[in-house]
Protein backbone atom coordinates (compact mmCIF):
# COMPACT_ATOMS: atom_id res chain seq x y z
CA UNK A 1 0.00 0.00 0.00
CA UNK A 2 1.15 3.51 -0.72
CA UNK A 3 -0.40 6.95 -0.42
CA UNK A 4 -3.13 7.99 1.95
CA UNK A 5 -4.68 5.04 3.71
CA UNK A 6 -7.14 7.08 5.76
CA UNK A 7 -8.43 10.53 4.91
CA UNK A 8 -10.74 12.44 7.19
CA UNK A 9 -12.19 15.78 6.12
CA UNK A 10 -14.27 18.15 8.23
CA UNK A 11 -15.60 15.29 10.34
CA UNK A 12 -18.40 16.24 12.68
CA UNK A 13 -20.41 14.03 14.98
CA UNK A 14 -23.20 14.98 17.30
CA UNK A 15 -25.64 13.03 19.43
CA UNK A 16 -28.72 15.17 19.79
CA UNK A 17 -27.51 18.59 20.81
CA UNK A 18 -24.18 17.28 22.11
CA UNK A 19 -21.33 17.90 19.70
CA UNK A 20 -18.74 15.13 20.07
CA UNK A 21 -16.45 15.87 17.12
CA UNK A 22 -16.16 19.37 15.71
CA UNK A 23 -14.49 19.40 12.33
CA UNK A 24 -11.63 16.90 12.36
CA UNK A 25 -9.18 16.78 9.45
CA UNK A 26 -6.28 14.42 9.12
CA UNK A 27 -4.54 11.98 6.81
CA UNK A 28 -2.84 8.73 7.63
CA UNK A 29 -0.31 7.48 5.10
CA UNK A 30 1.20 4.03 4.66
CA UNK A 31 3.76 3.24 7.34
CA UNK A 32 2.66 6.05 9.64
CA UNK A 33 1.64 5.55 13.24
CA UNK A 34 -0.65 8.23 14.57
CA UNK A 35 -0.82 8.54 18.31
CA UNK A 36 -4.18 9.99 19.23
CA UNK A 37 -3.94 11.43 22.71
CA UNK A 38 -6.30 13.41 24.85
CA UNK A 39 -8.23 13.38 28.07
CA UNK A 40 -11.19 11.12 28.72
CA UNK A 41 -14.24 12.39 26.83
CA UNK A 42 -12.15 14.19 24.20
CA UNK A 43 -13.80 12.12 21.46
CA UNK A 44 -10.97 9.69 20.69
CA UNK A 45 -13.11 6.54 20.74
CA UNK A 46 -15.88 8.17 18.68
CA UNK A 47 -13.29 9.25 16.10
CA UNK A 48 -11.85 5.74 15.98
CA UNK A 49 -15.28 4.13 15.68
CA UNK A 50 -16.15 6.43 12.79
CA UNK A 51 -12.79 5.80 11.13
CA UNK A 52 -13.38 2.06 11.39
CA UNK A 53 -16.87 2.37 9.89
CA UNK A 54 -18.71 1.32 13.04
CA UNK A 55 -20.44 4.66 13.31
CA UNK A 56 -21.68 7.15 10.74
CA UNK A 57 -20.44 10.73 10.78
CA UNK A 58 -23.02 13.51 11.11
CA UNK A 59 -21.04 15.49 8.58
CA UNK A 60 -17.78 15.24 6.68
CA UNK A 61 -16.00 12.59 4.66
CA UNK A 62 -14.08 9.53 5.82
CA UNK A 63 -12.17 7.69 3.10
CA UNK A 64 -10.45 4.38 3.78
CA UNK A 65 -8.19 3.46 0.91
CA UNK A 66 -7.11 -0.13 1.49
CA UNK A 67 -6.93 -3.21 -0.68
CA UNK A 68 -8.54 -5.45 1.90
CA UNK A 69 -12.16 -5.10 2.94
CA UNK A 70 -11.35 -5.65 6.61
CA UNK A 71 -9.22 -3.69 9.04
CA UNK A 72 -7.40 -4.41 12.25
CA UNK A 73 -9.68 -2.98 14.88
CA UNK A 74 -8.91 -3.50 18.52
CA UNK A 75 -11.55 -2.09 20.89
CA UNK A 76 -10.70 -0.76 24.32
CA UNK A 77 -11.95 -3.93 25.94
CA UNK A 78 -13.13 -7.12 24.35
CA UNK A 79 -14.16 -10.51 25.72
CA UNK A 80 -14.60 -13.41 23.38
CA UNK A 81 -16.65 -16.50 24.18
CA UNK A 82 -15.28 -17.77 27.50
CA UNK A 83 -15.91 -21.43 26.69
CA UNK A 84 -14.09 -21.39 23.37
CA UNK A 85 -10.43 -22.10 23.00
CA UNK A 86 -7.99 -19.62 21.49
CA UNK A 87 -7.79 -21.76 18.33
CA UNK A 88 -11.58 -21.83 17.90
CA UNK A 89 -11.82 -18.08 18.40
CA UNK A 90 -9.06 -17.45 15.88
CA UNK A 91 -10.62 -19.95 13.49
CA UNK A 92 -13.91 -17.99 13.44
CA UNK A 93 -12.19 -14.73 12.54
CA UNK A 94 -9.92 -16.40 9.99
CA UNK A 95 -12.98 -17.86 8.26
CA UNK A 96 -14.86 -14.55 8.44
CA UNK A 97 -11.91 -12.87 6.72
CA UNK A 98 -11.41 -15.75 4.33
CA UNK A 99 -7.80 -16.40 5.29
CA UNK A 100 -5.79 -19.36 6.51
CA UNK A 101 -5.70 -20.05 10.26
CA UNK A 102 -2.02 -21.05 10.04
CA UNK A 103 -0.70 -17.48 10.15
CA UNK A 104 -2.70 -16.72 13.30
CA UNK A 105 -1.42 -19.87 15.00
CA UNK A 106 2.14 -18.96 14.07
CA UNK A 107 1.54 -15.57 15.63
CA UNK A 108 0.33 -17.32 18.80
CA UNK A 109 3.57 -19.26 18.93
CA UNK A 110 5.60 -16.08 18.43
CA UNK A 111 3.73 -14.32 21.22
CA UNK A 112 3.84 -17.37 23.50
CA UNK A 113 0.05 -17.70 23.62
CA UNK A 114 -1.14 -21.27 24.11
CA UNK A 115 -3.77 -21.88 21.38
CA UNK A 116 -5.32 -24.80 23.27
CA UNK A 117 -6.14 -22.63 26.28
CA UNK A 118 -9.72 -21.59 26.88
CA UNK A 119 -10.41 -17.87 26.64
CA UNK A 120 -11.63 -17.76 30.25
CA UNK A 121 -8.24 -18.98 31.45
CA UNK A 122 -6.29 -16.18 29.75
CA UNK A 123 -4.75 -13.37 31.78
CA UNK A 124 -5.59 -9.75 30.82
CA UNK A 125 -2.27 -9.51 28.96
CA UNK A 126 -2.97 -12.74 27.07
CA UNK A 127 -6.51 -11.51 26.26
CA UNK A 128 -4.97 -8.41 24.69
CA UNK A 129 -2.56 -10.59 22.73
CA UNK A 130 -5.52 -12.59 21.43
CA UNK A 131 -7.29 -9.37 20.45
CA UNK A 132 -4.27 -8.08 18.59
CA UNK A 133 -3.78 -11.42 16.79
CA UNK A 134 -7.43 -11.23 15.70
CA UNK A 135 -6.87 -7.66 14.52
CA UNK A 136 -3.81 -8.86 12.60
CA UNK A 137 -5.66 -11.77 10.96
CA UNK A 138 -5.23 -11.53 7.20
CA UNK A 139 -2.70 -8.68 7.51
CA UNK A 140 -4.97 -5.65 7.08
CA UNK A 141 -3.49 -2.42 5.73
CA UNK A 142 -4.99 -0.22 8.42
CA UNK A 143 -5.00 -0.80 12.16
CA UNK A 144 -7.17 1.09 14.60
CA UNK A 145 -6.14 0.35 18.15
CA UNK A 146 -8.16 1.88 20.97
CA UNK A 147 -6.05 2.02 24.12
CA UNK A 148 -4.28 -1.30 23.48
CA UNK A 149 -2.25 -1.15 26.68
CA UNK A 150 -4.98 -0.01 29.07
CA UNK A 151 -5.03 -1.98 32.30
CA UNK A 152 -1.89 -3.99 31.57
CA UNK A 153 1.16 -4.45 33.75
CA UNK A 154 4.49 -3.01 32.53
CA UNK A 155 5.70 -6.37 31.16
CA UNK A 156 2.52 -6.98 29.13
CA UNK A 157 2.53 -3.33 28.02
CA UNK A 158 6.02 -3.76 26.64
CA UNK A 159 5.02 -6.96 24.83
CA UNK A 160 2.05 -5.23 23.18
CA UNK A 161 4.32 -2.31 22.21
CA UNK A 162 6.71 -4.73 20.55
CA UNK A 163 3.86 -6.24 18.54
CA UNK A 164 2.70 -2.79 17.42
CA UNK A 165 6.28 -1.95 16.43
CA UNK A 166 6.48 -5.11 14.33
CA UNK A 167 3.22 -4.11 12.59
CA UNK A 168 4.67 -0.68 11.89
CA UNK A 169 7.86 -2.17 10.48
CA UNK A 170 5.79 -4.16 8.00
CA UNK A 171 4.69 -0.84 6.49
CA UNK A 172 1.12 -0.84 7.79
CA UNK A 173 -0.69 2.27 8.98
CA UNK A 174 -1.79 2.50 12.58
CA UNK A 175 -4.10 4.86 14.41
CA UNK A 176 -3.58 4.30 18.11
CA UNK A 177 -5.17 6.03 21.05
CA UNK A 178 -4.10 6.25 24.63
CA UNK A 179 -4.06 8.68 27.49
CA UNK A 180 -0.91 7.10 28.83
CA UNK A 181 1.58 9.16 26.86
CA UNK A 182 4.61 7.15 27.91
CA UNK A 183 3.09 4.10 26.20
CA UNK A 184 3.18 5.92 22.88
CA UNK A 185 6.92 6.61 23.10
CA UNK A 186 8.97 4.90 20.41
CA UNK A 187 5.80 3.72 18.65
CA UNK A 188 4.31 6.77 16.99
CA UNK A 189 5.62 8.71 14.02
CA UNK A 190 2.96 11.39 14.49
CA UNK A 191 1.09 12.86 17.38
CA UNK A 192 -2.47 14.13 17.23
CA UNK A 193 -3.88 15.75 20.32
CA UNK A 194 -7.62 15.94 20.86
CA UNK A 195 -9.45 18.26 23.16
CA UNK A 196 -13.25 18.52 23.44
CA UNK A 197 -13.86 17.13 19.98
CA UNK A 198 -11.16 19.13 18.25
CA UNK A 199 -7.72 18.21 16.97
CA UNK A 200 -5.54 20.87 18.57
CA UNK A 201 -2.32 19.47 17.18
CA UNK A 202 -1.40 17.10 14.40
CA UNK A 203 2.27 16.83 13.57
CA UNK A 204 5.24 14.47 13.26
CA UNK A 205 7.06 13.52 16.41
CA UNK A 206 10.46 15.14 16.60
CA UNK A 207 13.44 13.60 18.34
CA UNK A 208 16.52 15.31 19.66
CA UNK A 209 19.85 14.01 18.32
CA UNK A 210 23.35 14.87 19.52
CA UNK A 211 25.80 14.65 16.61
CA UNK A 212 29.52 14.68 17.39
CA UNK A 213 31.53 16.06 14.45
CA UNK A 214 34.85 17.54 13.44
CA UNK A 215 34.96 21.37 13.78
CA UNK A 216 32.68 23.08 11.28
CA UNK A 217 33.39 26.23 9.31
CA UNK A 218 31.11 29.25 9.56
CA UNK A 219 30.07 28.78 5.92
CA UNK A 220 28.98 25.20 6.52
CA UNK A 221 27.12 26.17 9.66
CA UNK A 222 25.22 28.88 7.83
CA UNK A 223 24.38 26.55 4.98
CA UNK A 224 23.01 23.86 7.30
CA UNK A 225 21.22 26.27 9.60
CA UNK A 226 19.20 27.49 6.64
CA UNK A 227 17.78 23.99 6.25
CA UNK A 228 17.74 22.49 9.77
CA UNK A 229 17.05 23.59 13.30
CA UNK A 230 20.00 22.86 15.57
CA UNK A 231 22.12 24.28 18.33
CA UNK A 232 25.89 24.11 18.30
CA UNK A 233 28.53 24.32 21.05
CA UNK A 234 31.39 26.86 21.18
CA UNK A 235 33.89 24.67 19.35
CA UNK A 236 31.30 23.75 16.71
CA UNK A 237 31.79 20.03 17.31
CA UNK A 238 28.54 19.10 19.06
CA UNK A 239 25.25 19.63 17.31
CA UNK A 240 21.88 19.34 19.03
CA UNK A 241 19.41 18.62 16.22
CA UNK A 242 15.64 18.38 16.75
CA UNK A 243 13.90 16.77 13.81
CA UNK A 244 11.87 13.75 12.70
CA UNK A 245 13.66 10.41 12.81
CA UNK A 246 13.50 10.19 9.01
CA UNK A 247 15.15 13.59 8.60
CA UNK A 248 18.28 12.81 10.62
CA UNK A 249 19.70 10.57 7.89
CA UNK A 250 19.31 13.42 5.39
CA UNK A 251 21.10 15.72 7.82
CA UNK A 252 23.98 13.30 8.24
CA UNK A 253 24.25 12.91 4.47
CA UNK A 254 24.51 16.67 4.14
CA UNK A 255 27.26 16.75 6.77
CA UNK A 256 29.15 14.23 4.65
CA UNK A 257 28.71 16.37 1.55
CA UNK A 258 30.23 19.27 3.47
CA UNK A 259 33.28 17.06 4.24
CA UNK A 260 32.55 17.03 7.95
CA UNK A 261 33.60 13.91 9.86
CA UNK A 262 30.98 12.32 12.09
CA UNK A 263 32.18 10.66 15.29
CA UNK A 264 28.82 9.65 16.72
CA UNK A 265 25.06 10.18 16.73
CA UNK A 266 23.01 9.77 19.89
CA UNK A 267 19.24 10.03 20.18
CA UNK A 268 18.35 12.12 23.15
CA UNK A 269 15.29 11.22 25.15
CA UNK A 270 14.65 14.77 26.25
CA UNK A 271 12.09 15.60 23.57
CA UNK A 272 9.85 12.60 23.80
CA UNK A 273 6.11 12.52 23.23
CA UNK A 274 5.41 13.55 26.82
CA UNK A 275 7.61 16.62 26.45
CA UNK A 276 5.98 17.59 23.19
CA UNK A 277 2.51 17.14 24.64
CA UNK A 278 3.37 19.32 27.62
CA UNK A 279 4.92 21.94 25.31
CA UNK A 280 1.77 22.05 23.24
CA UNK A 281 -0.48 22.29 26.26
CA UNK A 282 1.75 25.09 27.54
CA UNK A 283 1.61 26.94 24.20
CA UNK A 284 -2.14 26.66 24.19
CA UNK A 285 -2.53 27.97 27.71
CA UNK A 286 -0.34 31.02 27.07
Amino acid at each position, binding site marked *: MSGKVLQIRNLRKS*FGKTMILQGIDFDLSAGEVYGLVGQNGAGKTTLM*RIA*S*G*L*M*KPSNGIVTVNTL*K*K*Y*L*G*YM*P*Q*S*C*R*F*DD*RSSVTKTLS*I*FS*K*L*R*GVDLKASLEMCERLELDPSKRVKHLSPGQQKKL*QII*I*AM*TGGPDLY*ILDEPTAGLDPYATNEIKQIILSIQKSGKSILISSHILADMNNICTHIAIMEIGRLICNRPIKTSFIVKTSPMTADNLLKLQNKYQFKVNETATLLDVTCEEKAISMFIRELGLCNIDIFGVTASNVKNIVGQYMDLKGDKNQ
Partner: protein
Amino acid sequence: MSNSFFQLIQRDIKKTLNFRAFLIWISLSGLCLFFFIFSNGRYDLVENGTIDFMSLFLPQIIFGPWAILSVYYDLISSDREHNVLDCILCSGIKKKTVFLSKMLTSLIVSLVLSLIYLLPITLTIISITKEINYIVVLIKYFLPLWGYIMVFSSLGILISVIARSSKAALIWSLACGLILMPRFFMLLIEGLGTILRWSQTTKDWISLISPGVLMSALSDFTNTEIFLTSIAGFSLFVFLSFILGYVIFINQDEWNYGE
Protein backbone atom coordinates in the same frame (compact mmCIF):
# COMPACT_ATOMS: atom_id res chain seq x y z
CA MET B 1 -20.56 -13.21 1.74
CA SER B 2 -21.97 -16.72 1.78
CA ASN B 3 -19.00 -18.30 3.55
CA SER B 4 -18.95 -15.62 6.24
CA PHE B 5 -22.73 -15.84 6.55
CA PHE B 6 -22.69 -19.58 7.20
CA GLN B 7 -19.77 -19.12 9.55
CA LEU B 8 -21.83 -16.65 11.57
CA ILE B 9 -24.82 -19.02 11.63
CA GLN B 10 -22.60 -21.87 12.77
CA ARG B 11 -21.20 -19.69 15.56
CA ASP B 12 -24.68 -18.55 16.66
CA ILE B 13 -26.08 -22.08 16.66
CA LYS B 14 -23.19 -23.23 18.86
CA LYS B 15 -23.79 -20.25 21.12
CA THR B 16 -27.54 -20.82 21.51
CA LEU B 17 -27.63 -24.61 21.63
CA ASN B 18 -25.24 -24.86 24.53
CA PHE B 19 -25.30 -27.20 27.52
CA ARG B 20 -27.58 -24.84 29.49
CA ALA B 21 -30.16 -24.76 26.69
CA PHE B 22 -30.16 -28.54 26.33
CA LEU B 23 -30.54 -28.99 30.08
CA ILE B 24 -33.49 -26.59 30.24
CA TRP B 25 -35.26 -28.15 27.26
CA ILE B 26 -34.68 -31.74 28.30
CA SER B 27 -36.08 -30.82 31.73
CA LEU B 28 -39.09 -29.23 30.04
CA SER B 29 -39.60 -32.34 27.96
CA GLY B 30 -39.29 -34.45 31.14
CA LEU B 31 -41.92 -32.29 32.82
CA CYS B 32 -44.19 -32.84 29.83
CA LEU B 33 -43.84 -36.62 30.24
CA PHE B 34 -44.49 -36.33 33.97
CA PHE B 35 -47.65 -34.26 33.51
CA PHE B 36 -48.89 -36.54 30.73
CA ILE B 37 -48.35 -39.77 32.58
CA PHE B 38 -49.59 -38.62 35.99
CA SER B 39 -52.53 -36.51 34.82
CA ASN B 40 -55.62 -37.16 32.72
CA GLY B 41 -53.47 -37.29 29.61
CA ARG B 42 -52.59 -40.97 29.90
CA TYR B 43 -56.09 -41.88 31.06
CA ASP B 44 -57.74 -40.11 28.10
CA LEU B 45 -55.33 -41.77 25.70
CA VAL B 46 -55.85 -45.29 27.02
CA GLU B 47 -59.60 -45.04 27.64
CA ASN B 48 -60.80 -42.75 24.84
CA GLY B 49 -57.87 -42.73 22.41
CA THR B 50 -57.77 -38.92 22.56
CA ILE B 51 -54.90 -36.57 23.37
CA ASP B 52 -55.67 -33.54 25.46
CA PHE B 53 -53.88 -30.32 24.39
CA MET B 54 -53.22 -29.12 27.93
CA SER B 55 -51.75 -32.43 29.05
CA LEU B 56 -49.17 -32.07 26.28
CA PHE B 57 -48.36 -28.41 26.61
CA LEU B 58 -48.92 -27.43 30.25
CA PRO B 59 -45.17 -27.14 31.02
CA GLN B 60 -44.71 -25.22 27.77
CA ILE B 61 -47.52 -22.81 28.67
CA ILE B 62 -46.11 -22.19 32.14
CA PHE B 63 -42.35 -22.26 31.62
CA GLY B 64 -42.05 -22.12 27.81
CA PRO B 65 -41.59 -18.34 27.41
CA TRP B 66 -38.70 -18.30 29.87
CA ALA B 67 -37.20 -21.47 28.43
CA ILE B 68 -37.24 -19.94 24.93
CA LEU B 69 -36.09 -16.48 25.96
CA SER B 70 -33.22 -18.02 27.96
CA VAL B 71 -31.83 -19.34 24.67
CA TYR B 72 -32.00 -16.06 22.78
CA TYR B 73 -31.82 -13.15 25.23
CA ASP B 74 -28.06 -12.63 24.91
CA LEU B 75 -27.61 -13.58 21.28
CA ILE B 76 -26.77 -9.99 20.30
CA SER B 77 -26.49 -8.18 23.63
CA SER B 78 -23.48 -10.17 24.84
CA ASP B 79 -21.60 -9.65 21.56
CA ARG B 80 -22.23 -5.93 21.74
CA GLU B 81 -21.53 -5.65 25.46
CA HIS B 82 -18.17 -7.38 25.07
CA ASN B 83 -17.31 -5.54 21.81
CA VAL B 84 -17.12 -8.80 19.85
CA LEU B 85 -19.70 -7.34 17.47
CA ASP B 86 -17.26 -4.52 16.61
CA CYS B 87 -14.54 -7.06 15.81
CA ILE B 88 -16.96 -8.98 13.57
CA LEU B 89 -18.10 -5.83 11.76
CA CYS B 90 -14.47 -4.78 11.22
CA SER B 91 -13.85 -8.16 9.57
CA GLY B 92 -15.72 -6.95 6.50
CA ILE B 93 -19.13 -8.24 7.60
CA LYS B 94 -22.15 -5.97 7.21
CA LYS B 95 -24.64 -5.37 10.00
CA LYS B 96 -27.38 -6.65 7.71
CA THR B 97 -25.55 -9.99 7.35
CA VAL B 98 -25.10 -10.26 11.11
CA PHE B 99 -28.82 -9.73 11.73
CA LEU B 100 -29.85 -12.12 8.97
CA SER B 101 -27.64 -14.79 10.48
CA LYS B 102 -29.39 -14.30 13.85
CA MET B 103 -32.78 -14.63 12.16
CA LEU B 104 -31.85 -17.82 10.37
CA THR B 105 -30.29 -19.18 13.56
CA SER B 106 -33.56 -18.61 15.42
CA LEU B 107 -35.47 -20.49 12.71
CA ILE B 108 -33.14 -23.49 12.87
CA VAL B 109 -32.79 -23.57 16.65
CA SER B 110 -36.57 -23.26 17.10
CA LEU B 111 -37.03 -26.38 14.96
CA VAL B 112 -34.52 -28.25 17.10
CA LEU B 113 -36.22 -27.09 20.32
CA SER B 114 -39.63 -28.22 18.99
CA LEU B 115 -38.17 -31.65 18.28
CA ILE B 116 -36.53 -31.88 21.70
CA TYR B 117 -39.90 -31.19 23.30
CA LEU B 118 -42.17 -33.30 21.10
CA LEU B 119 -40.04 -36.33 20.31
CA PRO B 120 -39.99 -37.95 23.80
CA ILE B 121 -43.75 -37.48 24.35
CA THR B 122 -44.54 -38.88 20.89
CA LEU B 123 -42.36 -41.93 21.55
CA THR B 124 -44.05 -42.36 24.93
CA ILE B 125 -47.53 -42.19 23.34
CA ILE B 126 -46.47 -44.75 20.73
CA SER B 127 -45.06 -47.06 23.40
CA ILE B 128 -48.26 -46.78 25.50
CA THR B 129 -50.64 -47.39 22.59
CA LYS B 130 -48.31 -49.66 20.57
CA GLU B 131 -49.58 -47.82 17.51
CA ILE B 132 -47.14 -46.13 15.15
CA ASN B 133 -50.02 -44.01 13.78
CA TYR B 134 -49.61 -41.73 16.77
CA ILE B 135 -46.62 -40.26 14.97
CA VAL B 136 -49.25 -37.78 13.71
CA VAL B 137 -49.07 -36.22 17.18
CA LEU B 138 -45.63 -35.04 16.29
CA ILE B 139 -46.79 -33.73 12.94
CA LYS B 140 -50.02 -32.15 14.21
CA TYR B 141 -48.44 -30.22 17.04
CA PHE B 142 -45.09 -29.54 15.41
CA LEU B 143 -46.23 -26.45 13.47
CA PRO B 144 -48.07 -24.78 16.38
CA LEU B 145 -45.15 -25.40 18.71
CA TRP B 146 -42.63 -24.16 16.18
CA GLY B 147 -44.72 -21.01 15.66
CA TYR B 148 -45.01 -20.55 19.41
CA ILE B 149 -41.26 -20.89 19.86
CA MET B 150 -40.60 -18.57 16.89
CA VAL B 151 -42.74 -15.83 18.45
CA PHE B 152 -40.67 -15.88 21.61
CA SER B 153 -37.44 -16.31 19.61
CA SER B 154 -38.14 -13.14 17.65
CA LEU B 155 -39.10 -11.41 20.88
CA GLY B 156 -35.86 -12.66 22.47
CA ILE B 157 -33.82 -11.27 19.57
CA LEU B 158 -35.69 -7.96 19.82
CA ILE B 159 -34.91 -7.79 23.55
CA SER B 160 -31.31 -8.74 22.81
CA VAL B 161 -31.05 -5.84 20.37
CA ILE B 162 -32.70 -3.25 22.60
CA ALA B 163 -30.99 -4.14 25.90
CA ARG B 164 -27.56 -2.59 26.37
CA SER B 165 -26.27 -5.50 28.44
CA SER B 166 -26.96 -9.19 28.96
CA LYS B 167 -28.15 -8.48 32.48
CA ALA B 168 -30.71 -5.94 31.25
CA ALA B 169 -31.79 -8.39 28.54
CA LEU B 170 -32.32 -11.11 31.16
CA ILE B 171 -34.53 -8.85 33.27
CA TRP B 172 -36.58 -7.83 30.23
CA SER B 173 -36.96 -11.47 29.22
CA LEU B 174 -38.21 -12.48 32.65
CA ALA B 175 -40.75 -9.65 32.62
CA CYS B 176 -41.97 -10.43 29.08
CA GLY B 177 -42.18 -14.15 29.85
CA LEU B 178 -44.39 -13.41 32.86
CA ILE B 179 -46.69 -10.94 31.09
CA LEU B 180 -47.22 -13.18 28.07
CA MET B 181 -47.92 -16.28 30.15
CA PRO B 182 -51.51 -17.18 29.05
CA ARG B 183 -53.09 -17.38 32.51
CA PHE B 184 -51.48 -14.15 33.66
CA PHE B 185 -52.15 -12.38 30.36
CA MET B 186 -55.81 -13.42 30.32
CA LEU B 187 -56.20 -12.17 33.89
CA LEU B 188 -54.73 -8.85 32.81
CA ILE B 189 -57.12 -8.62 29.84
CA GLU B 190 -60.04 -9.66 32.03
CA GLY B 191 -59.20 -6.90 34.51
CA LEU B 192 -58.64 -4.30 31.82
CA GLY B 193 -61.80 -5.42 30.02
CA THR B 194 -63.88 -4.95 33.16
CA ILE B 195 -62.48 -1.46 33.69
CA LEU B 196 -62.88 -0.46 30.05
CA ARG B 197 -66.18 -2.37 29.60
CA TRP B 198 -64.99 -4.55 26.73
CA SER B 199 -67.29 -7.26 25.40
CA GLN B 200 -66.32 -10.92 25.84
CA THR B 201 -65.55 -11.18 22.08
CA THR B 202 -63.13 -8.23 22.32
CA LYS B 203 -61.45 -9.82 25.32
CA ASP B 204 -61.11 -13.13 23.44
CA TRP B 205 -59.54 -11.43 20.43
CA ILE B 206 -57.09 -9.43 22.55
CA SER B 207 -56.19 -12.61 24.44
CA LEU B 208 -54.83 -13.97 21.17
CA ILE B 209 -51.83 -11.67 21.65
CA SER B 210 -50.59 -14.25 24.13
CA PRO B 211 -48.67 -16.83 22.08
CA GLY B 212 -49.88 -19.62 24.37
CA VAL B 213 -53.48 -18.86 23.45
CA LEU B 214 -52.47 -18.66 19.79
CA MET B 215 -50.77 -22.04 19.96
CA SER B 216 -53.91 -23.59 21.40
CA ALA B 217 -55.93 -22.05 18.58
CA LEU B 218 -53.46 -23.24 15.97
CA SER B 219 -53.81 -26.83 17.19
CA ASP B 220 -57.51 -26.84 16.36
CA PHE B 221 -57.85 -27.53 12.64
CA THR B 222 -61.64 -27.76 12.85
CA ASN B 223 -62.24 -24.06 13.44
CA THR B 224 -60.91 -22.56 10.20
CA GLU B 225 -61.45 -18.93 11.16
CA ILE B 226 -59.56 -19.19 14.44
CA PHE B 227 -56.91 -21.38 12.78
CA LEU B 228 -56.23 -18.82 10.04
CA THR B 229 -56.34 -15.96 12.53
CA SER B 230 -53.76 -17.67 14.69
CA ILE B 231 -51.48 -18.27 11.69
CA ALA B 232 -51.80 -14.58 10.78
CA GLY B 233 -51.22 -13.62 14.41
CA PHE B 234 -48.05 -15.70 14.68
CA SER B 235 -46.69 -14.42 11.36
CA LEU B 236 -47.45 -10.80 12.22
CA PHE B 237 -45.84 -11.09 15.64
CA VAL B 238 -42.66 -12.69 14.24
CA PHE B 239 -42.50 -10.31 11.28
CA LEU B 240 -42.97 -7.17 13.39
CA SER B 241 -40.45 -8.28 16.00
CA PHE B 242 -37.80 -8.96 13.35
CA ILE B 243 -38.47 -5.73 11.45
CA LEU B 244 -38.35 -3.68 14.64
CA GLY B 245 -35.23 -5.51 15.79
CA TYR B 246 -33.54 -4.94 12.44
CA VAL B 247 -34.30 -1.21 12.33
CA ILE B 248 -33.05 -0.74 15.89
CA PHE B 249 -29.96 -2.89 15.29
CA ILE B 250 -28.95 -0.94 12.17
CA ASN B 251 -29.38 2.49 13.76
CA GLN B 252 -28.53 1.66 17.33
CA ASP B 253 -25.08 3.24 17.49
CA GLU B 254 -26.61 6.54 16.48
CA TRP B 255 -29.57 6.34 18.84
CA ASN B 256 -28.65 5.02 22.24
CA TYR B 257 -25.15 6.35 22.63
CA GLY B 258 -24.16 7.15 26.18
CA GLU B 259 -27.08 5.40 27.81
